[in-house]
């Protein structure tokens, strides 16, 4: 693909996105909730689109398509289990939202810190989030840079792609905080879904004789891709369980996603956010996996399954104009995830780390810290992506299992009066360290994956240590008492 066309497509994307970001910031107010949460006023549709764009990264059209290409239908099941985890958003969403409004929480870490009456809980949750999510962002940046380098035949260098991606994410997060992130996310979500659906239809009807042709080719030539077996293949049952446990809890364990539960203007807006995301997620998942299967039928001999999407895009099956749109769509998927992570992490550093160390700091200095930290986090992600350290990809892979250790403390905050700060801290620190160790060494005790052990260990530690320590009785009564009444009033189960 000619570099000039790539520059042009990226140029249009960047200009339109940046104009939208400035438009989103018109009449923006002051203060921390305004900058990080759009003052809790997001409408349902924008909430759904930003939720979708933040959740779905470049992994879908590249990594998931590649997993489907090589591992078969198990990849589809794995992603569908993720979607089913949205029941947790429907269950915890109103609770986060009500508590956030009543007690003024900005981040999920702050909610836990207040509920367990310990700023150190917030500190540890924020620090662990940075530890896992900065490398995760770096890997997203690496993905875009490789894609642009590959599609342009080297005309856009790896470092050049990296610089553009990180500056763009930073710009869109800085212009108007969450408002610019939410609106650019919305644009990007639409590009992601439209480009991928349209291109899939062109590939399937143009080169494979329609879906009937694709399905019969798969059934005749690759029947092994259409089944999962308990003890065989990449998606054997233990691997499937190990991969799906962190995925199921993703929407409450990942702060850049759970922070979005504070943002809708009303419960009606939240219902639209979750419903809209479910529709988006189902379609986007189907498209990504069918995309991988189409690549398998058209280009069966690839050594590296991650090349399935770039190969399909560079082939005659996809007209050049559409390939450019999909390239922008994949870039958009990554940028919209990275800028949301940048903003969420900077809000947590400002509120949960800075204010834990300086409890008397006022809101203005907190906001100043957040705005200074934003480029620092972006610089760290850039540095990690530039160095291409093996450690970074391991930490990124460890992110989903590593963040899972926060889940028992989140459940406990809403459903167990006896939960304590010591229990939360022990479960996050000790189980987090153990899970990361398992990821680094590749050990699988009893054949089970780190995600499984993350959940078992963190739950055990949270329960046992909580029972051995004194609960914050007054705080629990205030928090849970308020929620109990408010949930009844809003008719939430």
């Amino acid at each position, binding site marked *: 693909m000619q570099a000039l066309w790539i520059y042009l497509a990226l140029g249009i994307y960047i200009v339109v996105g940046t104009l939208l970001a400035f438009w989103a910031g018109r009449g923006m107010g002051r203060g921390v909730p305004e900058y990080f949460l759009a003052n809790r006023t997001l409408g349902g549709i924008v909430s759904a689109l930003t939720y979708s764009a933040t959740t779905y990264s470049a992994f879908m059209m590249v990594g998931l398509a590649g997993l489907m290409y090589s591992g078969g*239908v198990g990849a589809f*099941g794995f992603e*569908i289990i993720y979607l089913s985890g949205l*029941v947790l958003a429907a269950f915890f969403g109103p609770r986060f939202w009500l508590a956030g409004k009543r007690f003024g929480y900005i981040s999920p870490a702050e909610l836990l810190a207040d509920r367990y009456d310990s700023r150190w809980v917030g500190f540890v949750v924020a620090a662990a989030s940075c530890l896992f999510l900065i490398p995760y962002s770096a890997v997203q940046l690496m993905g875009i840079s490789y894609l642009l380098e590959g599609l342009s035949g080297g005309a856009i260098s790896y470092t050049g792609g990296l610089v553009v991606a990180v500056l763009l994410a930073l710009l869109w997060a800085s212009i108007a905080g969450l408002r610019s992130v939410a609106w650019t996310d919305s644009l990007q979500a639409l590009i992601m879904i439209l480009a991928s659906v349209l291109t899939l239809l062109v590939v399937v009807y143009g080169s494979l004789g329609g879906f009937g042709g694709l399905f019969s080719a798969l059934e005749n030539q690759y029947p092994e891709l*259409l089944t999962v077996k308990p003890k065989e293949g990449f998606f054997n049952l233990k691997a499937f*369980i190990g991969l799906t446990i962190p995925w199921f809890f993703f929407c409450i364990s990942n702060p850049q996603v759970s922070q979005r539960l504070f943002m809708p203007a009303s419960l009606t807006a939240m219902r639209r956010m979750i*419903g809209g995301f479910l529709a988006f997620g189902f379609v986007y998942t*189907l498209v990504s996996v069918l995309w991988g299967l189409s690549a398998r039928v058209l280009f069966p001999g690839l050594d590296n399954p991650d090349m399935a999407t770039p190969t399909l895009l560079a082939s005659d099956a996809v007209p050049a104009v559409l390939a450019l749109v999909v390239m922008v769509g994949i870039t958009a998927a990554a940028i919209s995830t990275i800028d949301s992570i940048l903003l969420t992490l900077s809000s947590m550093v400002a509120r949960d780390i800075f204010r834990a160390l300086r409890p008397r700091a006022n809101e203005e200095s907190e906001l100043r810290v957040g705005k200074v930290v934003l480029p620092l986090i972006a610089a760290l992600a850039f540095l990690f992506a530039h160095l291409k350290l093996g450690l970074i990809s391991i930490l990124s892979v460890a992110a989903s299992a590593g963040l899972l250790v926060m889940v028992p403390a989140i459940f406990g905050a809403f459903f167990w009066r006896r939960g304590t700060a010591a229990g939360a801290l022990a479960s996050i620190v000790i189980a987090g360290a153990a899970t990361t160790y398992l990821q680094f060494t590749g050990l699988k005790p009893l054949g089970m994956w780190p995600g499984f052990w993350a959940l078992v260990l963190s739950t055990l530690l949270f329960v046992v240590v909580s029972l051995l320590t004194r609960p914050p009785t007054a705080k629990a009564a205030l928090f849970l008492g308020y929620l109990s009444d408010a949930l009844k009033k*809003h008719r939430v189960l």
Partner: protein
Amino acid sequence: MALGPAAKVALWFSLLLLSAYIVPYGFLSDVPSMAGSFLYWSLFALAIILFILRLMSSWRD
């Protein structure tokens, strides 16, 4: 012992979720067709979406 509404929802959801593991790995592992696990997980996703929409339908502002 009668189950409360939240427990009933959790029970039904757990059964549905378990089926996403048991059916493809237990009953469809020898069905090499798009009408096998692929179809099952698609239907499972639709059932989950309806389940969640139903769960949210009572919410009032």
